[in-house]
């Protein structure tokens, strides 16, 4: 048995190495795995389990899927060992599909040996003192100048502005006001996602307009009065690799 187990693991490593960098785009029910700390979120595709991420805060880049809903996973197989029992996907885009699916209801208990990665915040109250919203990165320190394009990304078939998008819109409005922009153009798009099984998922008609109008409404509310708003009725084609980046609204601010 001691001989067989390493051979088995070696075999797995070969498979994982061969798949490294491959894209995995699929729709399935998410699986929640409890741990001693925060839960992990997983999903299965073609008999394999993939690790999507852990519970974090609303300000994080990763927004976990939801039980009672299927999830569209668009991610790349990343280097490294399994996490929470799943092959890690990084980067990974998560889109919670809107319709309720009661079959998506798997919550696995914590098990010895299955640990979540270190979490910026545990399951209790936060221990991190607020930085007061001050971004000390180099990019934040350098003031923006000239024509700037800001991009708001969306989950599939969704027009909900997540926290990150909220920040982008706020930043774009502040920049436009700060420079007294002569022109602010808002462009909305909808897109196609190509799944690993070859299926094409196309975002619903009218979504590009809704996204663009929503952002324009926000910008007006933030004090930007002269806006040009446009949208494309056609869904952008997918490539199965970068599809999440086309579900977007761009805000182009011209001095």
């Amino acid at each position, binding site marked *: 048995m001691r001989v067989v187990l390493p051979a088995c693991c070696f075999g797995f490593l070969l498979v994982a190495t061969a798949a490294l960098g491959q894209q995995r785009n699929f729709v399935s029910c998410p699986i*929640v795995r*409890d741990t001693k700390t*925060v*839960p992990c*979120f997983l999903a299965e595709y073609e008999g394999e389990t993939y690790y999507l991420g852990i*519970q974090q*805060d*609303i300000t994080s880049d990763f*927004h*976990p*899927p*939801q*039980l*009672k*809903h299927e999830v569209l996973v668009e991610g790349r197989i990343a280097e490294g060992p399994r996490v929470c029992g799943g092959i890690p996907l990084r980067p990974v885009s998560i889109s919670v599909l*809107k*319709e*309720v699916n009661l079959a998506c209801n798997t*919550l696995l208990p914590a098990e010895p040996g299955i640990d979540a990665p270190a979490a910026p915040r545990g*399951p*209790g*109250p*936060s*221990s*991190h*003192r*607020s930085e007061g919203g001050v971004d000390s990165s180099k990019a934040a320190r350098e003031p923006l100048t000239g024509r700037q394009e800001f991009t708001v990304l969306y989950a599939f078939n969704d*027009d*909900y*502005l*997540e*926290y990150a*998008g*909220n920040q982008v*819109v*706020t930043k774009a409005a502040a920049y436009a006001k700060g420079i007294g922009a002569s022109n602010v153009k808002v462009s909305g798009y909808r897109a196609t996602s190509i799944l690993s099984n070859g299926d094409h998922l196309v975002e*619903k008609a*009218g979504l590009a307009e809704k996204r663009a109008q*929503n952002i324009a*409404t*926000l910008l007006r*509310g*933030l004090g930007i009065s002269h806006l040009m708003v446009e949208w494309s009725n056609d869904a952008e084609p997918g490539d199965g690799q970068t599809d999440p980046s086309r579900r977007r609204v761009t805000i182009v601010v011209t001095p």
Partner: protein
Amino acid sequence: MRRLALVGIFTLGIAFILSAQYQDRFKITWIEPGSGATLPEFDAFDSNEGTLGVLNASGPVNTEGHPFFTALGTNGRACVNCHQPTYGMSVSTTGLVERWRDTDGKDPVFAAFDGSNCPSLPQDQEKSHSLLLKRGLFRIPLPWPPKNADGSPKPVEFTIEVVRDPTGCNTSAQYGLKSADPTISVYRRPRPAANLKYVISGGQPIVLKTGMLADVDPETGNPVGMNLMSDAREPSLQTQALSAIMGHEEARVAPSREKIEKIVQFESQVYVAQQAHIFGGPLAVAGGPPGLGVAALRDHRAGVLGDNDYDPVFGVFTTWKDNDYYRSSVARGADIFMFRQFWLRDAAHINSIGLGNPLKRTCATCHNAQMTGQDLSAGWVDVGTTNYPTWTEPSTWAESSELPVFKITCSRDADPHPYLGRVVYTTDPGRALISGRCADVGSIVMQQLRGLAARAPYFANGSAKTLREVVDFYDRRFDMKLTDQEKEDLINFLGAL
């Protein structure tokens, strides 16, 4: 014989002293409009758990002619009818039942318009006011579809049908959904008109939970916190006061700006909190938990996030750990509130805003604003009190509830309710009656947790008669598996706020 007489005199003396104490302890405290009383800077009232403190931070208040204490409409009501200091600037069913008895149902708090189950019912009968007397609920008539500020109808994402109408108001030809002025009647508790600097704090231009613009104060143009009303329909204290006078007081002429401002000034300086416990003694004591009592509310800064372990929602209770039975219990309850993990599940506007479903967290995740335990962001959440199947009403049709039931059917091109889908049965659509959004059905703005012991029953629909029933609801709803000791600790903690 002489000895017997002395004993008798002594006994009478003791009885007199006790009687005086008893009368003081249960002093008549219902303030009637136009009574002209002066409210002291600090007053204390008996509550179920001990003593409620009421602090007028600006000093004594002369109510003579004061618009908060004067009937401004046509039904004899003033703001104070439903926002009594005795009952934490709200009103309890205990007080309402006493008031019915004392006035034979003639007090303006029982006005036909919204103090009865429906204005069309015979007003002299107690059963016509059963929702107010049993659950502390006032009728809130709301136009359907909802209207914009200019009176134009808002776009809506769902249809609404009345499937059960025990009060008769929603199917009434005069007051109902199919009347000439289509109206939905829901029934809700009045929120405490106190500690309001906390309640109105936290305005951000974009609402985190919806990704949409926050409402703005029509006078200042500034975004508002949207935590004032259970459905966030009024943006500011000024608009709320005006709406309440035109609605609840049935005024035919709008009050002057001066009167509105005087009401807002009064509301903005009054603080309520539990001040003493019946067995535990004074709560706001040197070296004790710093967040207890009214002075702490007066002095603390508003708009501070408390969902952290270094400056928690209601302050630290460390000094009460390993203290006497009551104080130790309160301290353990504070720890449960802040640290006891459980699976938050299927709660729209919590799990659905990017945090994941389920979410392994604590009470303080949602009740995160320091000093009040509201949500610092716009706080409407469908915690499950109004929507089937988790609603607080009896779960079988054989048992009766006096609340109406509505069937909500979401249009195909709208986002459905995130956990209940496109058809939802509800006793109160909550925020959705204002926003017109399907995802908002059953979402109610969470309310402050101060002065709770004085103003039962709880939840916006008055379904929990006691704090025990509140805790039991959460235990059941989120499968918290609280032990009896943990429940007692949580109840003691909540009762101390």
